[in-house]
Each structure stands twice: as structure tokens, then as C-alpha cells.
């Protein structure tokens, strides 16, 4: 794998016919952390899903095989993002957002969107299945970064800098809630607020809108039995451990029984149908159980590295768009990781958010790796330049190739 900045070996992740020394200037620490997370994810998806897969699909490798394909696609997308460079995204910001909105609408059409577990979240196409909400989160960040960078000082104004973004967010959230997908809705809003804050929106607007949104959020929770149940279960999982709190309680049992060093890879007992969604939303519980505190801390540290190097790349970006984009994507990855792990450990109510790079789910993995690719591109372009201008594109190509 690509580690040092002056690695002379061609990367297997970025295959290439030429054997001449190639200079890579993408952030090796960030790349290493991302690849480590993806690898951990593949191992853990197999470990957590093998029993279920063997029983339901008759093939223990069923989920691993699909995740491997997604990881392959993710690597290509990541490499492509580095090669193309983040700047191209600026031009794509509006079209991508439009496509996302169309997809979010499409998924709501009965017969087009596939219902899984009571929620219409998937677009099943031959050969691949898309989760429009996952795509929307990515394009939302790109759009916000572009829009906020463009508006510059006017960001501080209510009518130009705040309201349009809030209204657009309202549309996306409404579409997500229709699925319903509460987790993605919250995530979209979290991203909005992070970027608005970074761009310098008045704090009073942010605080005020949060206060205004509280009754709405309360309504959304109180009028949905399953959301209410999740909150109740979150508040006291042990009192409801045989019904609504079952998943949280089982997750806590998983993590806790791992202890310092874990039960050993593959030794999880909770994945024997005790813990539902062990290979998707609750994969962190299995990490905690099998690899113990050691594995949990390692995972958290890897996300910490992603956040650290992502923020660093954002700060070093050569323009505001890059800064906002870097921060937004870092937040996309970091906040989802933090929320997912918090849910798994009973610190937040169940959301339905995946653990980036690790959870089973092709769409989520590819999008996460795409985001990582953009961050890497950002880090590469922020590296000290020697021959600026037109040669820059060529240099980038060499770095990637």
C-alpha cells in the first residue's frame, strides 16, 4: 500500500503499467487510515455476517463477496477522485444536487424504490442498488461548499447566506423523512450547520433555527411510534431489553463482553442472531466484542486520523471552496462514525446510520471512499507547489498514475 510520501513503488490500488518511479503527493497518513478502515471493514463484515449469510443465503461469504466488489469499485472511484481533482466538483455541484433530488424522489415511487424493514430507501437496479440518501449527503456537502464559497461575505446575511440553504435543506430533509430516514435527515442538517458555522453565518441564526426546529423534531418523534420507541429504548435500554430496547441492550452486551482484548476474531457470540444488523449498523458492537477495547480504540483512532488529516487538508486548501469541501467531507465521515459508534454504545438513540468504510453496504462504502478520494485530492493539491499553473494537471496525473 502507499505509505510514505516519496514511495517509489507503484501502488496496487492505483494500478499502472509503467515501472518508472512515480511521485505521490497525496497525504499518506490519510490514505493509510482509510485503507486500514476499509480492510478492517472487510474482515469484520465477514466475521459478523458469516453465520447469518450461511443460514439465509446458504453461503457464508455472501456479504463478504459483495462488500469486496464494492471495495473494488470504491478504490476505482477514490483513485478517479484523486486523479480528476476536487476542483472539477465545483462545476458539478448543481447537477449532482439535482440528480440527488431526483433520485430521492424516485425512491419514493412505489415499485421503484425497494422497501426494506418498513423504509423505502433503496433503488434496486440490475447489478447494483443505490441508496439515494447516501448520495445526497455527499452532493449536499459539495453543493454547500460551492455555494458558500461563492457567496463569500454575503454568507453572513440572512436572505442570501442563510435562508436559501435552509430551504433547500428543508426539501432534502422532507424527502428523506418520507422514506423515512431520520438518520440521514439529521445528518444533512448537521452538515448544513457545520458548514454554515465555518462559513461565518451568524450564530444567532443557527441557534435560533435550532430552537425553532425543536418543536418540529419533537413532533416528528412523538408522532412516529418507532422513533418514540427508539428514544424510550435509548433512555433505559435495560428496562426494555426484551422488546424495544433489545437491539441497544444486545449491542451494549456485545461491546461490554469484549473487555480489553476481546473474545478473538470470529468468536463473537452475539452475532449468533442475538444482535440484529450485526454486519451493518451495529458492526462496531462486534468489533468491540471480538477485538475488545484495543480494537475499539484502534477504530476510533483511525477515524480520529481521518478527521485530523481531513481538517488539515481543508485548512491547507488553496481556496475557500476546497476548505469548505474538505471540512464538509471530513464532517460527513467523522460525524457519521461518531454517531454510529455512539448509537452502538447507547449514547444516542438508534438512527440507522452506517459506520463509514466498515459497515456492510456497497453504496455507503463507495460514497465514503469517494469522499476520502476528494479529501486525498485536496491534500495532494495543497502540497507545496513547485510548478504552478497548467503543469499542475500533469503533475496530478503523475501522482495518481
Amino acid at each position, binding site marked *: 500500500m502507499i505509505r510514505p510520501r516519496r514511495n517509489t513503488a507503484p501502488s496496487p490500488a492505483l494500478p499502472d503499467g509503467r515501472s518508472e518511479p512515480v511521485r505521490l503527493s497525496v497525504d499518506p497518513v490519510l490514505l493509510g487510515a482509510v485503507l486500514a478502515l476499509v480492510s478492517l471493514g472487510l474482515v469484520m463484515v465477514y466475521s459478523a455476517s458469516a453465520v447469518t449469510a450461511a443460514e439465509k443465503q446458504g453461503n457464508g461469504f455472501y456479504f463478504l463477496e459483495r462488500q469486496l466488489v464494492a471495495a473494488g469499485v470504491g478504490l476505482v472511484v477514490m483513485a478517479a477522485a484523486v486523479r480528476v481533482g476536487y476542483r472539477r466538483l465545483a462545476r458539478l455541484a448543481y447537477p449532482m444536487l439535482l440528480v440527488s433530488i431526483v433520485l430521492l424522489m424516485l425512491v419514493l415511487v412505489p415499485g421503484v424504490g425497494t422497501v426494506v424493514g418498513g423504509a423505502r430507501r433503496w433503488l434496486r437496479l440490475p447489478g447494483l442498488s443505490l441508496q439515494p440518501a447516501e448520495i445526497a449527503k455527499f452532493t449536499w456537502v459539495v453543493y454547500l461548499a460551492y455555494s458558500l464559497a461563492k457567496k463569500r461575505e454575503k454568507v453572513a446575511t440572512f436572505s442570501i447566506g442563510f435562508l436559501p440553504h435552509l430551504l433547500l435543506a428543508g426539501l432534502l430533509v422532507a424527502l428523506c423523512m418520507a422514506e423515512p430516514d431520520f438518520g440521514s435527515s439529521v445528518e444533512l442538517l448537521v452538515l448544513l450547520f457545520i458548514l454554515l458555522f465555518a462559513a461565518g453565518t451568524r450564530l444567532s441564526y443557527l441557534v435560533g433555527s435550532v430552537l425553532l426546529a425543536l418543536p418540529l423534531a419533537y413532533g416528528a418523534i412523538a408522532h412516529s411510534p418507532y422513533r418514540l420507541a427508539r428514544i424510550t429504548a435509548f433512555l433505559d435500554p435495560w428496562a426494555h431489553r426484551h422488546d424495544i430496547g433489545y437491539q441497544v441492550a444486545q449491542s451494549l452486551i456485545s461491546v461490554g*463482553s469484549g473487555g*480489553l482484548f476481546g473474545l478473538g476474531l470470529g468468536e463473537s457470540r452475539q452475532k449468533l442472531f442475538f444482535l440484529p444488523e450485526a454486519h451493518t449498523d451495529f458492526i462496531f458492537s462486534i468489533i468491540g466484542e471480538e477485538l475488545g477495547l484495543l480494537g475499539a480504540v484502534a477504530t476510533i483512532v483511525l477515524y*480520529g486520523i481521518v478527521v485530523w488529516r481531513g481538517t488539515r487538508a481543508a485548512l491547507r*486548501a488553496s481556496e475557500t471552496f476546497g*476548505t469548505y469541501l474538505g471540512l464538509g467531507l471530513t464532517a460527513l465521515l467523522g460525524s457519521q462514525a461518531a454517531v454510529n*459508534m455512539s448509537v452502538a*454504545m447507547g449514547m444516542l438513540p438508534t438512527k440507522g446510520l452506517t459506520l463509514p468504510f466498515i459497515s456492510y453496504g456497497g453504496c455507503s462504502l463507495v460514497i465514503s471512499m469517494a469522499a476520502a478520494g476528494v479529501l486525498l485530492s485536496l491534500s495532494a493539491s495543497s502540497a507545496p507547489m513547485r510548478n504552478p499553473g497548467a503543469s499542475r494537471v500533469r503533475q496530478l496525473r503523475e501522482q495518481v498514475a
Partner: protein
Amino acid sequence: MIPRRSTERGRPPAELTRWTRARVLVMGGLLMAALGATLARAVSLQVLQRARLTSMATDQTVREMEIPARRGDIYDRRGIPLAQSVEVDSLWLDPSMVGDLRRAARDLARTLHLDAAELEARLARGRRFAWVKRQVTPQEVTLAQRLEVPGLGVAKEPKRFYPQRELGAQVLGVVGTDGHGLEGLELAFEDELSGQSEKVEGTRDARGRNLLLQGAPEAVGRRGATVTLTLDRQVQYAAEKALDRAVDESKAIAGMLVVLDPRTGELLALAQTPRVNPNAPAPGIAAGALRDRPALDLFEPGSTYKAFVAAAALEERAVRPEDSLDCEGGSWEVGRHVIHDTHPHGMLNLARILAVSSNIGAAKLAQRLGREGMMRTARRFGFGERTGLALPGEGKGSIPYPKAEVTLATQAFGQGLSATAVQVAAGYGALANRGVLMRPYLVSRVTDPDGVVLLENQPTQVRQAVSERTARQVVQMLEGVVQKDGTAPRGALEAYRVAGKTGTSQKPDPVARGYSDKRIASFAGIVPADDPRLVIYVMIDEPKTDVYGGLVAAPAFKEVATAVLPYLGVPPSLSVLASAKKVPNPPPMQVKEEPAAAQPVTERLEQGSVSVPNVQGQVGRDAVARLLATSLEPRLRGSGRVMAQSPAPGAHVARGARVTLELGASP
């Protein structure tokens, strides 16, 4: 307004205000803080709350599983297995994994010869588990798996196997599909045979399925106790064969045969007809066919009871051996009833009364004994009380107080009271054993797998029924029964002195509350009469061709005695051999049946070894009987007629030696 081109990409980094940098850092820091919170929580859960959460995990995943012990075996007195446990496959299905249950049920039913509708209903009831068919053959497993029904599983289940097939089936009883004894000894010794099930810690999944992560525990040590019987496989075989023949030839509905060692009370055979194959699947066995009738069923013993009356009368000095009683010419009024004899007799002494089985003579003995005397008679020989056999539901018998004059008379010839075949045999055992009644028993030893003896039955004296002198006198008198002028000349043996008593009783009619014209023909025999080693009691239920015990039951006695006495190494009675010419010849039919029976007996007496008879060309079953009669232990290979035997015919071998017979289809 700033030119559009420059707005698109914003300001260069130099223009990134300190405030923007700070805000980005704040956001990055917030994300790091969130991750830090998860880290702290992980420490809290995995270090501080670890013990509590681990025990919760253990509570739900670790289950103490009971692994049932392998059911103990049942052996005959010589250690030949009569009941063993083997592991067989059972097919089950997880119905939730089957898409089209109807089709799956139809396919499985066709392959496994089940009823499709019934199977479908059964599978539909099980949510995640349902038996498809239990205890199937390996071929059925292969065929079923070839259907590729999803969710079809194979489980190992213990199955009871009876290597001797029908032999002693009702004594042994059966085991249900769930592995618990349902009848006979399997039920009586259920606790001992099933043994201690082992507790194993295993991991369980959320669906309640057990997963043995540490592997299955050692099979050794998990075994039930071994039950050793007093039954002798060879004696039981001879008894069942003879009884089958007797029932068959007399066209009777049923029969029982008890072989008892009078010196110890050990039951060597408890045979009954019709027989059942306990290996057949349970539905194939008719209800009630598994009753161990010789121990359970009560019937009126008939004239075989006269011997006990005579013994008691002698013991209580109600009569002297040389006394003669008037048999009234075959017809005697008792109250409003008339008692008949089959043949008219005048004055008869006690021996003759027994030999010709005079009802009137017996009734007069009862009159002399008195009502209390008759009750004492029953008590002396153990009637009206359970013998204490291990078999569940053993019959007790009823001895009503003979209030009416006629009851006193009829009880003298064994009507108006009831007993089991084992009770009658035990009573004769007392006569044979110098007046000492031994408690009959069937189980000699129960041993757990560690060799600890859980139960051991020793010969037990119940009581001195009558004095030794009286017992000897009665046995001597009973020898007259098998003489030419007795009721059972067919019960006589060539080489042994026989004391016996016939019985021909009317069966009570449960509907008309009187007696029907149905009969029970029986014969109780003691051999050798001069030094009793065996009591053989034969009871034939509702014979059609002949109804008399001397004709129907005595030949079966003779057949068993002929086969078993040499096998047990009982020396022939010298007095019989010496006076062989005077002894009336048995009917020629029987001579034909056992042409060489006397021959090996004399040889063995001299040398303690036997000559191997020539059984070549004989049907396997006959060859086995022949070898058993010669005290040799047959080993069979194949089926059909004897093609070869080893050792060769005429060879002198030790008694009890094995003779291997190669069977094959006749050329």
C-alpha cells in the same frame, strides 16, 4: 460585485481569514471531541461495566445442555445382548426456510413414504423446527437429501435395537421414540437404564439452537446401567419355539410358557404367543400385544391346582398318602350342583386321584381341608400375593373365601380362583424344591457403567410351603400323571423322570357370568422328578383341536425339557434309563421329531463333551434347535439351509462350544 470568475473558487488561501480558520478548527475539534466521547464510553463499557455485561452475555448464550446418557443394555444370564442402543438418523426441517411448503411436504412424503397432507400440517405447525421422519435408514437420508429441500437437517437419535428380534419381546418391553421405556423391563428399569444425563456447557444461538463449540462430549461414561436377566436366551428360544408349535397345532389363540429353576426361583424363560417384533416401528405393534402375559394375566389355573390341594391335605394330615377316597362313579352332588369327572372312578388313592385328575376326589380333599384349610393352601404356595417380579403391573390373583359348598369343591380343581402363570410355576417350584417356596425373579443384576452393582437379586426363600416329606410324596405321586394310565403320557421323557399335572379349565364367560365352552389347557411339569432342576409350565389359551392339557400342553413341555435339560447339563435319571423298556413309548410322532435326542445325552454323561450332530442340509431354524438340544451354541452366517458346518459332524467338543453354520439357498 466581484467578477464571477473569481467568486467561483473563492479566495486564495492567503485570504482565508483567521476567523474562518478558527471556525474550521472548532468544527474539526468538535468532531474529535465526539470521537473522544465514544472512546471514553468504550472504556466505560469494556473496562468498568465489563463484568456485568459479560455475565449478561453468558446468561443468554451459554446453556447447560443435558446430553442424555446412552441407554444401558439388557443381557441374558450368559451375557448375550437382548436389548441395545444404537444411533440412527432422524430428519428434521426448518419450515421457515422453505418457500413452497406444500411442494416440499409432497416431495418428502413421497420419498419417505409418509402422508403428504399430514406431513404438511405438521411442518406448518413448527415455526423453526419440525420432525420430518424420525429414525430413518441411511438410504432414506440420502434420498431425502437428494431432494435439496432447504432447511432439511439430520439429527442423531438413539434407537433401541433388539438383536434377538422377537425373543422375549414382551419381557423386555419397548422404548418410545423419545427414548423412554414404555413397557416391560424397559419401563420397570427406566431410571437405571436411562442413566445420568450429562450436563454440558454449550453455546446457544438466539434461536435456541445448541452449538457445541467445544465438540461433543465423550460418549464413554455417559451410559445407563446394564440389566442382566435370569433369562437364558437358549432356553427362551426353545420355549418360544415349542410354544409356537403347540399353539399352532392346537389352533389356540394364545399361549404362555414359563421355565423356572425351582432351587433358586430364577426364571429361565418367559415365553408367550403371539409374538411381536420389537424392532418394528411402534405403530406396527398392536395395542396389548406387548403385555407380558405370563406375569400379568390372570386366569383360572384348573386341575394343576389339585397338586397344591393334595400337598396341603397331606401336610395338615387331612389325608394320609395311602388313603383312598370314593370318587362316586364320576358324578357327585354338592348342594344344588353336580360335579363330574371325565371318566367314572370308584375308590382311588391320592396318587391315582392326581394321575387321573379326579375332580370329585379333589373336592373331597377340599372338604377334609375345610374352608380355612383351602385359604391356607393358597397362602402356602403364594397365591393371591404378588411374587414381586420386576415387571410393572404384575398380577396378584384372587382367592375368594369359599363360602358356598360348591365353591369349596370347585376351588379344589382350580376353578373359582385366579392366578398368573408365574405363580403356578412358582408353586410347583415349591413342590420341586423340597417344600420351600422361592421368590421367582427375572432380573439378577443391575450394574452401572462403573461396575457398581445397583441391584442384585439373590435366591430368596419365601416360606416353607409344606414339609420336605410332603413335597417329595406329592412329586412322587405326580409322576403317575405321565404314565400310560395318567392324563399326560405325552409329557413323559425318555431319559428323565417327569412329575407333572395337567389342567383343563373352563374359561369364565364375562358376559353370561358363568363358564363358557372355551378352555384353557395347561401342563405343569417338574424334571427330573428325582432331583428337580426345572419347572416348566405351559398354558394354551382356547385350543380348538383338543382341549385337554395332557394332549395340547404336555408335548410342548416335553419339547422344551428335551431341548433344555441336556443344554443345562442335567444328568438323565438313571431309574428311567434302567426301566426304559417298561416305560410306555411316547407317541410315534414325537419320536420322529426328535430322533437323536437321547443319543448325545448318554455320551455327554460319560465325557463332559458332546458330539457335534450332522445338521447339513437342514433348515437353519431346525439346525439351531438341534444344536441347542445338544448343548452347543450355534452361530449363523447367512440364511437358508445349512451348507457347511464347523466343527464337522461327529467331532467331540466341549459342551457349550460354538458351532458355526454357513447358511445359503438350497442348490
